[in-house]
């Protein structure tokens, strides 16, 4: 690996108990991790729990972190995703809770809340995607990871990642068109 891990210098300072470095790392990673977990879980409170748990693990590992094949950011994302999947597995008893199939705009109180309804439709549509499609889309689009990094994180090839991304977008487009039914479940 020719490029240095962008978090390496910060981690070295954390290893020397530098409080400014600790704050910098939290400022840099917490919003990203919270956004990742919120979109994977569709639940803010659970996402905050996951973000805190990831940092507990970061604090245990930070001083011992050595640059190697994986970037620190990739490792952090893997930890966060594992914690998200643990929680998603816990929801299997009630699959409707994880994957809302239909959105009823008439259930919203006022037509003037159209913008908020649109936000909710996006969030519901993301939640309705099969988890691996959602993971691919969240990593590549929202977390802005390169296709190579996202594929490595997911343990798949770039071709497989592109296939997941294309299917995720087709599903979203179907929901955007109002059908919400022509979902590709793989």
């Amino acid at each position, binding site marked *: 690996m020719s490029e240095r891990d962008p978090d390496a210098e910060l981690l070295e300072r954390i290893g020397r108990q530098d*409080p400014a470095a600790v704050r910098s790392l939290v400022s840099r990673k917490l919003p990203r991790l919270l956004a990742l977990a919120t979109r994977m879980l569709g639940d803010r409170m659970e996402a905050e729990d996951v973000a805190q748990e990831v940092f507990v693990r970061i604090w245990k590992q930070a001083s011992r972190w050595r640059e190697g094949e994986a970037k620190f950011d990739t490792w952090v994302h893997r930890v966060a995703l594992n914690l998200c999947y643990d929680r998603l597995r816990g929801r299997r008893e009630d699959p409707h809770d994880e994957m809302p199939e239909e959105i009823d705009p008439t259930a919203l109180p006022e037509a003037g809340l159209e913008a908020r309804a649109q936000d909710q439709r996006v969030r519901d549509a993301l939640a309705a995607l099969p988890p691996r499609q959602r993971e691919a889309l969240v990593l590549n689009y929202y977390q802005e990871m390169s296709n190579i990094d996202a594929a490595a994180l997911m343990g798949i090839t770039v071709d497989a990642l592109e296939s997941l991304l294309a299917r995720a977008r087709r599903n979203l487009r179907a929901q955007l068109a109002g059908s919400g039914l022509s979902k590709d479940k793989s």
Partner: protein
Amino acid sequence: MTPERFHQIVEAYGAEPRRWPQQDRAAAQAWAETHREQADALLAQAAGVDAWLAADKVAPPGAALFELVLDAAPGRRTAPRRRLWWSGAAIAGVGLMGGVAGAFAVSFFVLTGAAQQLPPVHESSYLTSSFGGSSADWSDE
């Protein structure tokens, strides 16, 4: 760049060239320039999903969450210990003051003879228990 590859790129990564794979970006943009009509149809379709995705915003972490995360960091563990040190000193101080007060009270009683005004230590009523010495006779009941 083939039409099929351009289609794959837009289907997977959307309409914004900055999101296309770095190794394909220049070639894909060049292909779009020379095949405007075909490219625009694909890009317009993808742009709708892009706009939809962009509408989803996650609120940034609040100050409380930020502090909770910081409190768990290794360097922050010194703060509770400092508080513990002060509370230990306070307990020791209160104990010391109690000892001084007790010593003063004992010396006061000894010097003034005040202890003699207390009831005799072995006064009978202090020795009576429910197991003996009771004058009550329940045999008549």
